[in-house]
């Protein structure tokens, strides 16, 4: 079977790479549209307040529900993703967003908008984001950091959305604008179709015992599987009978449960359980086991609906601690940079120039950091920690910046470090946890980040009210940025603890 495998590897590589770019492109689009929508909400805010009525506080609830649900909905979305697969989830997400926009055009009151715009859009964004992020992690094994950075650079383009939205509102009113946005969001449906479920790398040692079972199953299922498979691999392997492949492919696309025969469903559950294990190399042995103890497997391991295991994992704790504080450290200065510039006497024209430069620098630094991390000179989280520490130090020095050139230097430095660590969040998580369990981990991590996102702005505002100066927010952000990498010191010991537990 080796010649066959090598041939299939060579043929798989270009096709797989092509689809990987498709996934990155989709993630990029998601970033542009989702972030763009969230950022341009401020423009809709004015229109809503005037025309739909309601106080400032009520209308801002819509925006906060929308942006917080994007994070808080992640665990739920992780469950859906695991059940249905990424592609259907992403299409559902795009549908929710488009539908939410269209429904909002009929809105007559603020509570209606809270549900139609806040809830539906928030959930839709969560679906889209989670599916795209995990798919990127699954597809781009070797160059994850760089692909992630390219996709995140989409956020840099969102500054174009603001004048565009304003133009649309002037022309069509907020209802027409929402209608058109709904249409634009529906464009995410074809791009979600690019999220083709991939076949995991076939294990090097084929299990000969399963050959007979495998090839017969494969031949039966080849028809319904056609629409889901990355065809090259399937076809090449058929005659040589590397049979784990079709089974695992069936696993990746659970919607092909329409496959005939009760035997097949048993196989499915058996191998699904096997895939839930830590790495693909182990799956072969587990698949062997599952074939031998088929009925037993089914009863022993029911699929948990909501996988709470990440919460018990210390690695998750490490990651979430860092994620939470680094997000706080990122958001607070962003909010208060312009205000601080104004209090120092800098005009708002110059202040917006600051933001623009920071945005561009961040995008460029994300790409650079992603590329550097992919060179694998050292473990990715070392870079992450370095950026965080440097970013924290920069923030602590910020109160010393009292003139425009100094503030510009601060903004550029901060953007460089921010871009650096933001680009590495997903790759670091993948390094810590592996791709198989990424869904539930990312879901819960995003949930906790959402709590930070919800609490961050009010906390920043409270800090200002309490100290009457914006310098304190920067000190706070610096402190957060320095606290967040502390948890990574525990990473080696946490991994050892995990291994010990697994071997027990």
């Amino acid at each position, binding site marked *: 079977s080796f010649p066959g495998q090598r041939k299939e590897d060579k043929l798989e590589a270009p096709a797989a790479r092509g689809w990987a770019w498709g996934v990155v492109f989709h993630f990029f689009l998601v970033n542009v549209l989702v972030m763009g929508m969230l950022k341009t909400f401020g423009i809709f805010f004015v229109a809503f307040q005037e025309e739909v009525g309601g106080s400032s506080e009520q209308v801002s609830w819509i925006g906060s529900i929308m942006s917080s649900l994007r994070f808080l909905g992640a665990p739920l979305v992780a469950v859906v993703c695991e059940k249905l697969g990424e592609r259907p989830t992403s299409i559902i997400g795009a549908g929710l967003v488009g539908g939410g926009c269209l429904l909002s055009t009929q809105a007559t009151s603020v509570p209606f908008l809270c549900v139609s715009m806040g809830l539906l859009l928030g959930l839709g964004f969560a679906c889209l984001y989670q599916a795209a992020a995990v798919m990127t992690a699954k597809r781009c094994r070797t160059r994850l950091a760089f692909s992630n950075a390219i996709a995140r650079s989409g956020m840099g383009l969102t500054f174009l959305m603001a004048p565009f939205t304003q133009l649309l509102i*002037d022309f069509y009113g907020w*209802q*027409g604008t929402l209608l*058109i946005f709904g*249409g634009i969001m529906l464009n995410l449906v*074809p791009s979600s179709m690019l999220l083709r479920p991939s076949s995991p790398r076939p294990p090097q040692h084929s299990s000969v015992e399963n050959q007979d079972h495998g090839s017969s199953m494969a031949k039966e299922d080849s028809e319904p599987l056609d*629409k889901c498979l990355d*065809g090259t691999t*399937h076809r090449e392997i058929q005659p040589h009978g590397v049979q784990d492949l079709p089974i695992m492919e069936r696993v990746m696309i659970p919607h092909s449960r329409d496959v005939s025969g009760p035997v097949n469903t048993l196989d499915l559950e058996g191998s699904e359980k096997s895939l839930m294990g830590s790495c693909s190399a182990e799956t072969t042995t587990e698949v062997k086991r599952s074939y031998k103890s088929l009925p037993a497997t089914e009863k022993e391991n029911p699929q948990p609906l909501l996988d709470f295991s990440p919460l018990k994992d210390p690695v998750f704790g490490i990651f979430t601690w860092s994620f939470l504080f680094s997000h706080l450290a990122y958001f607070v200065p962003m909010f208060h940079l312009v205000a601080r510039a104004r209090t120092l006497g800098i005009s708002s024209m110059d202040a917006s120039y600051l933001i623009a430069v920071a945005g561009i620098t961040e995008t460029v630094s994300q790409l650079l950091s992603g590329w550097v991390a992919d060179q694998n000179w050292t473990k990715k989280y070392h870079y992450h920690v370095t950026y965080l520490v440097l970013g924290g130090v920069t923030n602590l020095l910020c109160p010393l910046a009292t003139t425009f050139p100094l503030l510009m230097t601060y903004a550029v430095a901060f953007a460089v470090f921010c871009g650096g660590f933001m680009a590495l969040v997903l790759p670091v998580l993948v390094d810590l946890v592996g791709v198989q369990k990424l869904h539930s981990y990312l879901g819960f991590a995003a949930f906790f980040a959402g709590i930070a996102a919800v609490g961050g702005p009010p906390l920043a505002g409270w800090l200002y009210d309490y100290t009457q100066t914006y310098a304190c927010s920067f000190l706070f952000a610096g402190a957060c940025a320095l606290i967040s990498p502390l948890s990574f010191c525990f990473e080696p010991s946490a991994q050892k603890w995990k291994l010990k537990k697994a071997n027990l």
Partner: protein
Amino acid sequence: GVSGTSIEKNITLDSAARIELSCRLDHKYSHWKNLQVTWKRGNETIRHISKTENSWSIQLRILDNSSLGSYSCTLKGEEEISAMFHLQVPKIEGKEKPIVSYEGDTAVMICKSFGYTPIAWTWYMTNGSEQIAINDSLLADKYSINRVSANVTHLKILKLTKEDDGVYWCEAAFELGKSRGKLKLKVLSFMVPLKPFLAIVAEAVILVILVFLYEIYSKRKEKCA
């Protein structure tokens, strides 16, 4: 002041008041001899100027609209310096950008007065070259005028049609006169944004079909290969 230029000042009055306008000469010009100061309103000269060391002032009793206007003081010495005072009622701001709404929908037009409370608000609609006052009791199911607070008025137009498109005026009546703000209403039919929307949806559907076809094609290609 500086010679050769003219200084202007706007004074806003909403109710009857006694006002004192004074022109003061900068002490760097105090060496001028033969200073002649004239207070004018338009072409009419005003008497009763009271003079102190370096300033000349007049006292006015503003009782009604006719007393408002532009007052000027002119100092003739070696050169001529003048200053203008514009007495006016509070300005009402309308909206620069048109309010966009759709047929069959409701539009709310808001007018605010800053700082001064008007006695009454009236809304006018422009029909051709005429301005017609909007009577909300007569057409109660079409218009509704609401004085939300002392300084803010809302005009709600229900069941919009194409004829409602145009310029509207909100007029605030003060004791000393009236002041107007301009608002524009644009009524669009649903077709207007619907066309780009359908175009975008069609494009998305085409892309979906293309991706789908490409997948089927690539599978068939491998089937044959």
